[in-house]
């Protein structure tokens, strides 16, 4: 997946621990992110956000002059951009509070560097979609904006359900998406109604994206669990 365009996004990091700020900045820099601003307090974060107009904020919950939840509310008044909490507070209540207030993600310390990078990239991609985006597969490419598959120069349209299923698979590309999660994506939140099975749709998607649908290489089955979409440059 092409994520180079995300590397220029302005990211605001707020944490009262200087060493941790340095670490996060260093991880993000290693991941290619170039526009980073760091702040050690609520007041500093507010004044910096005026100047830099961040496109993503990574906040700690406990700050010397206030808490991250209130800071998020103040930041969101000035600009609508995603907020990720990175905090030592691992309690469920804190997580629910953060998500309830509109946080986009919540990472509990300690974290793995690649986990942080993965989540930051995921949030940015969700928020700042570059349209149109062609998703390259082994034998074809998906054009989600037009809801079609391009294979050997041929444009094959996707049905609404096929589009929903492929979107769900693409959101977790390279990872198993369970049968249940696919059903939920295509038919809504009804984990108990199994009148619908994604199998027939998956077969038709394969006929569209695979050179040899009976030996799939892009949309593979994980027996009993679900399916996995393999995107080429990922």
């Amino acid at each position, binding site marked *: 997946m092409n994520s180079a365009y995300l590397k220029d996004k302005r990211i605001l990091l707020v944490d009262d621990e200087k060493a941790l700020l340095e*670490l996060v900045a260093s991880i993000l820099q290693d991941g290619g992110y170039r526009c980073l601003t760091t702040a050690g307090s609520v007041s500093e974060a507010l004044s910096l956000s005026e100047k830099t107009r961040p496109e993503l904020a990574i906040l700690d919950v406990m700050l010397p002059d206030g808490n991250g939840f209130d800071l998020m509310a103040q930041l969101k008044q000035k600009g609508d951009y995603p907020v990720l909490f990175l905090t030592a507070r691992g309690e469920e209540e804190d997580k629910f509070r953060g998500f309830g207030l509109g946080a986009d993600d919540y990472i509990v310390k300690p*974290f793995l*560097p690649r986990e942080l990078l993965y989540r930051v990239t995921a949030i940015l991609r969700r928020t700042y979609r570059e349209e149109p985006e062609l998703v390259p597969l082994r034998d074809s490419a998906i054009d989600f904006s037009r809801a079609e598959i391009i294979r050997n120069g041929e444009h094959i349209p996707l049905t609404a359900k096929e589009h929903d299923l492929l979107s769900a698979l693409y959101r977790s590309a390279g990872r198993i998406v369970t049968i249940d*999660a696919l059903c939920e994506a295509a038919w809504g939140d009804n984990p108990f109604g199994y009148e619908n099975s994604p199998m027939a749709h998956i077969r038709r998607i394969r006929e569209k994206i695979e050179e040899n649908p009976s030996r799939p290489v892009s949309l593979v089955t994980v027996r009993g669990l679900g399916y996995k979409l393999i995107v080429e440059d990922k």
Partner: protein
Amino acid sequence: MKSVPKLIRRFTGLLLLSFVLLVAVNLALLIVIASRQVGTASPWATADRVAANLSRTETGFALSAAGADALQSSGAWAVLIDNDTRAVVWHSENLSASVPSRYTLPEIAGLTRGYIDGYPAFTGGTEYGLMVLGFPKGSFWKHMWPSWDYQLIAHAPQIALAVIATNLLVILLIYAAATTKALRSVKPVTDGIRALPSGEPVRVKAAGLLSEVALHINSTSEVLQMQKRQLQKRDTARANWIAGVSHDIRTPLSMVMGYAGQLQSSPGLTQEERRQAAVILRQSQRIRNLINDLNLASKLEYNMQPIRRREENAVALVRQAAADFINDDPDGKYPVEWTTCPSLSVCRISADRDLLKRAVSNLIQNSIRHNENGCTIYVSVAEAGPSCVICVEDDGVGAADAQIKELNAAPHYMVCDENTAGQRHGLGLLIVRQIAASHEGNVLIGHSRHGGFAVKITLPMIKKPRP
């Protein structure tokens, strides 16, 4: 309280029995005493006997030896009043001088009922006249005017029964009134005693017969409440302490993990150095998992973990947990096989989604930890009667029978108040047990049919609604 009516029944029974017994004893006593009064010893009988032993002789009258004996043994004197003249025609030798020698009809009627000159008089008939015996003064008391309504005598059995029944009723009423009053004061006390083990505060109104007992119950409840509060305080403090420590460790550990992670993929380092960084990272992750486990286990143990249960499909939930594990295990050293019967797509349970997923992933991690050389992990969900059985097993090294027995029986060191020197197993299984317990389920550890270790979580299933 169930025992109170039982108690009342018993006492009422006892009361009735005593009453019947009392009547029987009284009757028996009456019979014994009365029987002494009748028969040969009766003064009337003595008078009759003396009369029968009197005979006419040429010179007058003579009393036979038997008659004389009867007279003598009773200490009585005797006179014979002639039928026609109503004068004394014969008398015994010990006759007192004050006894009249002639009687009018009213006098005879009077002496029959009563006394002659203070001597209790008893009569017996002879063909010659009336035999009158005067017993020593003060030896008998005579009813002077005994007369009974005929109906009274005729209905004596019914009247006796009615009297007994009335007595019984009165006694029962008195008893019922007394018992009701006692019960009214006993009921709050028994209710209070019954409520004590529930752990809720108990307040019994201190009034009536048992006010002292009520006061004692109240003070016992206060003591229990205080102990409960202290225990809760201590548990909360312990859980908070663990939460605090785990919180404080997180930030420094972030640093360790963050830089180790960077070093691990740093192109400027040698392969050996990168491997060392990887070890630091892996061990740091172990510390992280440990403090997370410790925190969760202590919260579950002290009921401080909020449990948000809703209707879930166990199949989907466990499938997601298995998929999450595979997604995060890129080297595939531990392949996961989904062995749930394909026809089972829904198994409804009431569960906290995150906690139950945590339990399943703990079991998968457990298999990994005990099989460093890799193993296949088999995950399944099955229905067994009214239960949903989630099974995680492996084909790894497994455990000996004794070990499995110990794992199933022995408490974990965290929840054990005995010497814990011998225990070295992790918190993973404890958390699984705690999570199962918070869902009214249980955990059974055993051998897997695949050769390794098997853990089964059994949870109650929600009944399928009729379509």
